Each structure stands twice: as structure tokens, then as C-alpha cells.
């Protein structure tokens, strides 16, 4: 039976008891250390600005302890290569 009334609480929709980072469809997010960051940027021959961005209010980023300018290493599953790394700069 379909309930006839709904009650909406403020802030509902976000269930704090679930850790989204543990969810199977959320790829692994890691904050890179300064050193790792430097190695990455050097190997690609780019400055921080050329990295793709990720919003600071991205659900996964909100769950992590980051600050603007951090680089996040994301390990995604890949159909072609097994797993693959993506790097995002928090803005």
C-alpha cells in the first residue's frame, strides 16, 4: 500500500550512517602528499592549473578531509585496462 502522507525533515536525503566512500560504485579517492603531487606534475610536464578539477562540494570530497588545492588520486575500474588512475585538483 502506498502511504498517503509524507513527512520531510530538513536535511533528509543525506543518511550520515552510510559512508559513501565505501560504496561499491564510488571509486577509491586518496589525497596525494606534496611529494607525490610534485612527482605527478613533473612527469606530466604541467602545472597544477592544467589538472582537471573536482568541486569541493563533491559528495566524495565532502566526506574526506581536504582543502582547496589538494590533488585527489582516484582509482577507477576500467573496461580496457583493469584499473586506471585519475587525478583531480580540489577547487
Amino acid at each position, binding site marked *: 500500500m502506498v502511504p498517503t502522507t509524507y513527512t520531510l525533515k530538513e536535511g533528509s536525503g543525506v543518511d550520515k550512517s552510510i559512508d559513501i566512500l565505501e560504496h561499491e560504485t564510488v571509486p577509491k579517492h586518496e589525497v596525494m602528499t606534496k611529494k607525490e603531487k610534485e612527482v605527478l606534475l613533473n612527469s*606530466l610536464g604541467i602545472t597544477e592549473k*592544467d589538472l582537471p578539477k573536482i568541486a569541493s562540494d563533491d559528495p566524495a570530497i565532502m566526506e574526506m578531509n581536504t582543502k582547496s588545492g589538494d590533488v585527489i588520486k582516484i582509482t577507477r575500474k576500467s573496461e*580496457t585496462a583493469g584499473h*586506471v588512475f585519475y587525478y583531480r585538483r580540489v577547487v
Partner: protein
Amino acid sequence: MIMTSKISDIVFGIMSPQQVKILARVRVVSSDLYDADGYPVEGGVMDPRLGVIDPGLHCRTCGGGIGECMGHFGYLELAKPVINVLYVKTIYQILKITCRKCGRILTVAPEGDAAKKKKKTADKKTIPSRCPHCRGQQKKILFVKPYTYYEDKNELNPEMIRERFEKIPERDLKKIGFRGGRPEWLILTLFPIPPVTMRPSITLESGERSEDDLTHKLVDVVRINQSLKENVDIGAPEFILNDLWELVQYHISTYFDNELTGIPLARHRSGRPLKGLVQRLKAKEGRIRGNLLGKRVNFSARTVISPDPKISINEVGVPVPVATELTIPEYVTDINIRGIKDLFKSEKVNYVVRPDGRRIKVTLENKKDLLTSIGPDWIAERQLRDGDIALFNRQPSLHRVSIMAHRVKVMPYKTFRMNPSSCPPYNADFDGDEMNLHVLQTQEARVEADFLMDVKHNIISPKFGGPIIGLDLDQISGVYLLTSKGASFTKEEASQLFADSGIDVDLPDKEKFTGKEIFSVLLPKNLNIEFKAHACRKCDDCKKRDCPYDCWVTIEKGELKRGVIDKTGVGAEKGKIIGRLHRIVSNDEIMDFINNYGRIGVSMLMKRGFSLGISDLDLPEQAHKTIKEEIEDSVKESHKLINQYNKKELKILPGMTPEESLEAQIMNVLASGVSRVGDVVGKSMKKSDISVMFTAGAKGSLINTTQMAAVVGQETILGKRIKRGYLNRTLPHIVPHDLSPGSHGFVKRGFKDGLTPFELFWNIMNGREGLMDKSLRTRKSGYMQRRLVNALQDLKVHHDGTVRNAHNQIVQFAAGEDKIDPSKSDWGTVDWKEFIETQLKGIVG
């Protein structure tokens, strides 16, 4: 034309009245075009100082002839200012945010630290009701399309708006980001009259002049403006002035854009809507998409294509009438002069270009004179001949292999001839398709085309790493029959096969040849490959090399040891052998492989004979019986389901209503019944040329055959059983609410036995849906692809494997995530293990 200077920069903005005046050479005062003698009126819209459009005449302003003089602007002094319709929105916005008294912007810009804080709150606020600068009370501005403004019910005329805009200080304009001019320039006071060169009139055969749409429009503007001016001068009553003013506004607006909403279209005398300036630029046939992004070109030809398996895949048969019209410039030197003179004598030169650049058509009369005077530094434009390189294209050009370089082969008749094996990249067939041919005019272009665009360099598709060109249809059937078990040939037959295909080989001295031996003759000696053929029956227990059906193909050291060659071996897109050849031989050799084996396949069919008839679809009595039983069983099964449904005992599937569950289960039961029939047909049908075609993968499938020989099965609309038609039934003779298969599009007969009229009707419904679907899908996917290509066109894979855009920003850290270049892969992957193994076998043995 010689370029003497370079454009350093271009500024886009709005023209000020001063600029209009500086640009202009004529002050237009008269709405007459020509006087009684037919000469253009000075001060009219066709004033001779505005440029030349008649051949032989010279410009009164610059003295240039046609093509030299680009035309000159004129101007018209408007009696009263008029709004530029293309900027109505901007005008409205500026009116809203500026003070009606002092002209300042209706905000105070905060300074210092406060600026940062207030920034976010400022844009949320509405416009204040009092000017923060002069405390003047503001009124509500209303904009009514297309070009009327009201302030508290009172109309604001262009004159008033202009006055207000004049008061806006420069520094305020900077703040609101208004660059490239003054806002009052959005209200026209001087109206530029474009040069006649952009609105040429045409002289009809009757000697009558037909003017361009823009000229007509300009005449209207000038005429109404004239009468407005006269009325202003004599002090006519305001309502008359307003009417005329409105009319000038209308004419100028439609001159700019004749598709404005809210005003009637300006029409030609014939009733055809006139083309405004916007219409000239906009849309598919507009200046941008029609003339700049896409142009008509010279040295090209278009005609119907037809097949010719005797020419190479990188050749194109060019009909004689086309070949005699298209030319290639040949630069005359001391070395080639004799050859060119010979061409001359055989009338193969259409034009010559003298050292001074004059182009002369070669005719019978001047041929002799030209022959004596021709020498180095002349250019002879000679006709197309065999071996010339030309680009061949079929629209829609969706990928790079939609245009490739072919060698010209001049042939009789009137169609372009191409090898049927080159059809897949163009997605061409011969049901009336037309294709375009472009003849390259410079040596650089020809070399580039030869090295990059020749068909032989594009056999391996960059999109999936397999051959996009291979054998097809009869060629596959032929090769299949040649290499299948038991095919045996005498030496004479074998030689005949090669001779028919135009191949010159030395056959070993042997009496009997198997088909596999004949196939091996042309294989490169270092070819090693092993794969399952298309004919593979997918047995549960694969015996691999001992396959009883000869479907395990082994080629060792260029010798076909076992297995039958079919679609998976040599077909377009699938052909494993072609894919492997590309690793071990040159592109020329792959091309020869496809050419030769294609011809051998066809010759084989010609020798053996290949045909099919209705009787090929005959099934044994026993099979008919089992098929009937299978179908009746599945119909019975669905009746059982219907009974359960009626009694509400039916198993309801997750996420579905009872009705949906019933439908899904009925469809399932029937489909499995039909598939069992397919198995029966596959097992009991006698070997025929039909079965050759589908086992080899040349054309058709077991499903097609089953539909012909036994049962068509369920006809569907939108993936569901047929539901539409009459109230609660599909056809009038059916009992309402009947759910049985026979009432909802299940066809239990085959095409050979024939369908009942009702079954045929359902079959046609399904067929029509297929047609609609196809046309809708191609249109939709075409547009999707266009948007995708436009969005991704600046992406590039760099040397470090990253994908970056034009700003050098990284989009993907590893191209395709695996850094594999599909054009250098085997169907998207690199199987190192297999590659090394097979190669080792070739070397070690």
C-alpha cells in the same frame, strides 16, 4: 590577387553615426532607382558611386572594374531615430539599470573590503526604486516585442531612449561591461546603405531589371523616411508622424531580420517573403554554413557507382565523359615537352596557361598555333588518364575512410566503377548510390594522398583495429566452397581458376589439387595463425584441431593445414587472416591479397555454379511434424499462462504488473518455441547453397532460413506483442479481450508456405515499424554524432599518452585508459601471448 598587407586585428562592435558617415561615399536622398532613360539616379539606392555590378563599366568612386571594386557604402539620414531590432534586448537591459534622470547606473559600487563582501548579495537585490546618485524616483520599464518600450504605460520612443543613453557616463558603461561603443549607437540615426555589389540586380532576358531583396527593402526605407521628413517639415499632426515613424521602424527592422516574431513578414510582390540580412547568414544555406564552411568546388565529378570486381580496390573506373572534362595541370619543361606535345596532338589537353597567366581553351582552330608557341613555363591542363590519383568520397562523410585516394582508370559508359570490396568504408551499395570524385591539382596534394589516403593504407580501420576492407558476399561463398572439405581440382581446373582471376602463378607439378592447396598458393610463407571459423557450431566439447566440421583453421608457414576459410578468415571487419597479414606484409601485399582472393572466390562460384530455389527450403516429413508439435506446444503453454492469469494464479515477475508478467512470459514461451524450431531446421535441412551462404557468413542467417522454411514467429510493435487496432482486439474478427498468441501477431507459418491475410497484416505492421525506426534512428544518431565531433574536435593524444585539449589541459591521463592505439591493435587488444607463440612456431617450427 596579391596580398600586400596582413590583417593585424579585427574589432567587433557597433558603428557610430560618425563612422557610418566616414565610410559612406553617397548621401542617399531619393527612392528612385533609375531615371526615364534607364540610368541609375544619383543619390538613389543604386547610385553608380556605390560600386559596379555591370560588366564593362567602371566604378565612379574608385575607378575599379567588376571584381576590382568591392563597392562603397552610402548613408541615409533618418528623419527620426529608429531602434536597431537586433539589439532590443540590450536596449531593454540598459534602460532598466540606468537612472531616468541622471543616467547613472542604479547601484553604488562598494569599495575596498566591502566590495568582496557585498558582491554576492548585490546581484540578488532588485533594482532600487530611487537612484542612489540623484535620489530620482525610478519607473517601471516594460518591453513589448518586437521593438516597443513603455515606462508606466507611456511609450518611450527611440528619441527619448537615445537622449537617456547619451547621459550615461563612460565610467559607468565600463562597470556594466559595455564595450565597443556607446549605447546610443544602438538607436540608428544614420542608416548605412550597403554597396550594390552585395545586392546586385539581374537583367532578365526581356531587358527588364530584377532587383535584389535588399534593394527593394532599402527603397521602402528611403521612401517612407522621405515622407516622414516632409511631414515633419510641414508640421503635420503627431498621429501622422507616429504612423510614419512606426513604418520606418518596421521597414528597417525587416531589412535586418525578416523572421521577427510579432510583426508580419515583409513580402515580395509575388508573395514570397523577402530575405533580410539575418536570413542571408543564418542556417544551413546561409553564408556561414553554406558558403564558408561548405563550398562548391571545381575539378570534381559526381555520378552513380556500379561494381567491377576486376579492378583493384584502390582503383576507380572513371567514365570517359568525366575523364575528358576533368584536368590536371602539367608544368611544361624541357624534359616533358615532347610528351605534352604528343598529348596535344591526340587532343588530350583542354586548356593551356601562358607564362603571363592567361588561360586559353584549346580548340581545333588554335591548336596548331598553340602547339608551336608552347614551351617551358607554360602549363598544360591535360585530361585524366589511367594511374592519376583522385579522391573518392561518399556522403555522409562520417569518418576518415569516407574519403580515400583511388587510382583513375578510364572506362566506357557513364558510371564510376569500384571494386565491391571497397564498399564497407564508404558504406556504399549499388542500388543507385552516387559518389564524388575530386582530382588533385598540386603535386604536394597528390603525394600526400598517395602516402596517407590511398585505399591500401586504410584497410585496417583506426576505429577497431581490424580490416574494414575484406571479402564480401559471393567472394566469401566462393572461398568457402574452395577450401571446404573434399574440394578437389585437376591441374587444369586449378590453372583455369587462377587464369580467370588474372593471377599468374607457377603451380607445383601435381595431378590433383585440394582446395586448401590452391588457397595456400598465394599465402605469404611466414603466415601462422589459428582461429575458429564462422562455420563453428559452438559444440559443448570443442575438439579444436580435430574438429569434425573442419571449423578449426590452422595456417602454418603460409599453408592452410586444416579448416575452412570464411567470414572470420577473410571477411570485412572480421577477417583474422587480413588482420594478421597487416603485421607481416606491406600494405600493397594486403591489397593484392584482397584483390586476388576476391577474384578467386568469384571465379570459383562461376566454375561451380551458385543458385538457389524454393526446393532448397524443403524439409523432411519428420521435421515438419516436429516443428508443428513444437509450435503447438508453445501455443498450448501460453494458453496455460493465460488461464493462470485469468484465475489470478500467474507468477508475477518482479517490477511488473500482472499484465506485463503475462506478456513477458508468453513472449518467452513463444520465442523459445521458435528457437527450438530453428534447431530442428538447422539439423534437418539438406545442404544447399542457402546453407553455404549462412554458414560461410556471406549473407543471411539460420533465423532468416527458419522464417522462410518453417515459422516466422512473433511480430512485435515497440518490442511488445501487437496490441493496437480495434477496441480490445487487434482485428475486427477477433473476440474482444482474447489474449491467445494467434490474436496478437504470432505467425505460425513460414514464408514458403505462405501467411494468412491476418498474419501478413501483422508482418507488414512490423515491417513498417522497422522502416520508421531506421529513418528516425539515423537522423537522431547523425545529429548526436555531429554534436559529439564538434565538442571533441580539439582533443589530441599527446606523446606521453595523455589526452589534452587545445588549452593543454588534461582530459584523460591515459588515452582510452589502456593507452592502446586501436589502429595498431587487434580488435582493440594486443594478445602478446598468442602473437609470440604463433611467431615462434614459424621460426622454430
